[in-house]
């Protein structure tokens, strides 16, 4: 009995009751502010830049000129579109990390249309062909792992990840076929450009805005969206009420893949007019974070994708201004995300110190 040490733990962690939304919003905002303060401090120490300079450059980098605002809107739209695409699958707890490959395949399909049909048909017909081909490609790339999951219960995470590499290799192959010089760099294609209305990026932004609202309605007010939620929460419940889980998995991944297809189509027709193995540039993975941070709510995803795009673009400008590596943006984004995700702990738990209680007695 004497060998048991007698001292109290300093604190313990207690689960909180659900906190009101405004309170959790304040905590999240505070986390972003703290993260920014920390970044400012970091800049001050290692770069000898005044924190205020950092904030000012960040802001100017994104909102400084109309061109920059449009650039931000364009990046936000593409990231948001891919985030919308991964959301239904994630809500169903189907861990699809293959958006990168799905978008890349649809980019490839769109470019293939411009190469083989370009100049042989009116532009609007070509655009429709491109859209159809992209959507089909995205669907196929997403539905293959879904079928395997539904029929043989394969691991979807590994499967979708591997499909990314297959997609990259396919693009590399076609670049060799299409570029006779062997440089593997396909120039900008002359055909299949999105018509310019109001602004070069306007249609892109408008399409994604419509998709966002559609996804919100689909997930919350459609019977199919309801089935996705039930399957995601509990497959046993789904079976109990007679939902065919296999059908829902395959159908949802078709929707997911179709949205990836739209993203690929938009990237090719409105932005790049070409394809490289790096055309998606990791946005297929960033999208997962955007979707997750927003707890799979398409409307909140506008805010979370804005946060990431704002930081990336702002820090990029900052790095340019001060002549440091653009890899700095990864550091800043990482720090802010650390604070944002870390603050969830304080939303769910509180820390209680025991010392004081005992002292009072």
């Amino acid at each position, binding site marked *: *009995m004497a*060998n*048991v*040490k*007698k*001292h*109290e*733990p300093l604190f*313990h962690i*207690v*689960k*909180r*009751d*659900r906190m009101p939304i405004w309170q959790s919003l304040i905590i999240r905002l505070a986390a972003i502010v703290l993260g920014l303060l920390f970044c400012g401090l970091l800049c001050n120490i290692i770069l000898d830049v005044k924190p205020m300079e950092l904030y000012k450059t960040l802001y100017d980098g994104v909102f400084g000129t109309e061109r920059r605002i449009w650039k931000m809107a364009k990046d936000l739209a593409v990231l948001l579109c891919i985030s919308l695409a991964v959301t239904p699958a994630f809500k169903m707890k189907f861990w699809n990390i293959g958006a990168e490959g799905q978008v890349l395949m649809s980019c490839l399909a769109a470019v293939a249309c411009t190469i083989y049909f370009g100049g042989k048909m009116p532009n609007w017909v070509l655009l429709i062909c491109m859209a159809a081909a992209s959507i089909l490609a995205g669907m196929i790339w997403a539905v293959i792992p879904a079928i395997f999951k539904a029929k043989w219960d394969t691991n979807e995470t590994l499967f979708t990840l591997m499909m990314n590499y297959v997609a990259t290799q396919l693009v590399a192959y076609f670049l060799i076929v299409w570029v006779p010089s062997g440089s593997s760099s396909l120039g900008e294609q002359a055909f299949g450009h999105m018509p310019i209305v109001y602004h070069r990026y306007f249609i892109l932004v408008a399409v994604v805005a419509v998709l966002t609202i559609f996804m919100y309605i689909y997930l919350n*007010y*459609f*019977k*199919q*969206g*309801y089935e996705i*939620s*039930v399957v995601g*929460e*509990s497959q*046993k*419940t789904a*079976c*109990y*009420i*007679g939902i*065919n889980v296999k059908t829902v998995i395959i159908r949802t991944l078709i929707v997911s893949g179709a949205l990836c297809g739209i993203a690929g189509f938009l990237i090719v027709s409105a932005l790049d007019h070409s394809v490289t193995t790096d055309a998606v540039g990791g946005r297929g993975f960033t999208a997962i974070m955007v979707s997750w941070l927003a707890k799979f709510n398409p409307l909140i995803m506008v805010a979370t994708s804005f946060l990431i795009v704002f930081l990336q673009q702002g820090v990029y400008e900052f790095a340019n201004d001060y002549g440091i590596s653009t890899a700095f943006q990864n550091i800043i984004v990482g720090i802010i995300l650390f604070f944002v995700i870390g603050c969830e702990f304080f939303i769910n738990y509180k820390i*209680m110190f*025991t010392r004081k*209680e005992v002292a009072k007695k």
Partner: protein
Amino acid sequence: MEKSIALELRGVTKTFGKVIANNNVDLTVYKGEILSILGENGCGKTTLMNMISGIYYPDKGQIFVDGREVVIRSPKDAFGYKIGMIHQHFKLVDVFSASENIVLGIDDGKKYNIKDVNNRVLEICERYGFNIDPKKKIYEMSVSEKQTVEIIKVLYRGADILILDEPTAVLTPQETEKLFDVLRRMRDDGKAIMIITHKLHEVLSVSDRVAVLRRGEHIATVETATATESMLTEMMVGKKVTLNIDRLDPVSPCERLVLEGLNCTSHEGIKLLDNISFTARSGEILGIAGIAGSGQRELLEAIAGLQHLDEGTITYKNPKNGEDVNLRDKTPLQIRDLGVRLSFVPEDRLGMGLVGNMDIIDNMMLRSYKRGASMFLDRKAPKDLAKNIIQSLEIATPGATTPVRRLSGGNVQKVLVGREISSAPSVLMAAYPVRGLDIGSSYTIYNLLNDQKARGVAVIFVGEDLDVLVELCDRIIVLASGKITGIVDARNTTKEEIGLLMTKSTSISEDAEKAAKEGSENG
């Protein structure tokens, strides 16, 4: 006899978020006594015991062992103070023998010698009247044997204060009596024993004193000799309750569901259902008794279209047109499309019957959302239904948009039963519908089942409390390892008779033990 205090709690408080699990609890246990900790589900019995055994750390308050204040931060600390807890869910390694499980984790610096261990285990068995083979492997054991191993494990470590969390929940009446004999012998040996329970007759038969908890507070501790069932219930619930279940005679019963020769095997080739045949009649409550995992779940799921059968037919006799429908190998959706009004309250409420993260309205919709050709959901009807059920079943909830996992067990069950009844079923199956419910809610559920019976519904009720089964049902089917070992008339039976039928084939059949094992794991 002069009694010395073994364990004392002063002002112990523990909160989880907003929920106060224990509030300022004072409790004293003497050496050589059996103290029952009595209270409804969710009143903080287990939390309190977990603080004594080092699983939780109290927010406030002091614990004294043998008159000295102690700090218990882990189960290891608790063992240091000779406190041992026997949990409701066994923590044993299946492929090890009894002795191997018993010595597991003991670090006394001595060389490990299984022969010595076996001898000491036998010594303990002899002393307290256990009956167990130390070399028997856990997977070969029945539930009651496993529990014995858990108790010996604690005694082997030299515990003087034993805590048993609902030890009788998994036992038959005969096994319970055996356990109580052992407990009495341990008490006479000077050990302090605390037993958590919510079954009143057990409290009265085994314990010396009863501590009653209500909503996390210690109401009083009384001598068992002076206590009566109604007095204890009143202390537990906080108001007078009548504990009578009315049993009406069935009104013009007719065959509703005829099962013939059901057989089914698990993936591992174990027989889950073995030649099951019976008839459920309208206007009648058919009880199903049996040790957990004897095939109850598979039986209900087979009827509901969730369990594949190897053989047999399930014939539903439609009361509207007198047609016979075979339900075997139909999906739940097909069953519904055939016009079979079958409602099913599964055992796993939040994992199967409901979706915990969804609100009450969305849970109401589970059964009906598919109706109509529109792509959009219709939330209007489920919303009205939710409001209706909240009101008529007196569900305590902040509103219809509260996620059901935030409700208490009783209210969760009311949501589920309410939804299943709302579709005006002609067959209603309920698996353990009062498990984890407080007394008031349990009686609400019994009344609802009785209402359905009076409306001519064929009710199938899987229960674990034999007293309730005998009082509520018209007929009782007893299952043992997937076989029907008896169909008795509930008006002319005793729970001892049912208890014997429950264990009828377990000693002969190996499958039964495996089934029982599976049951205890799944439970």
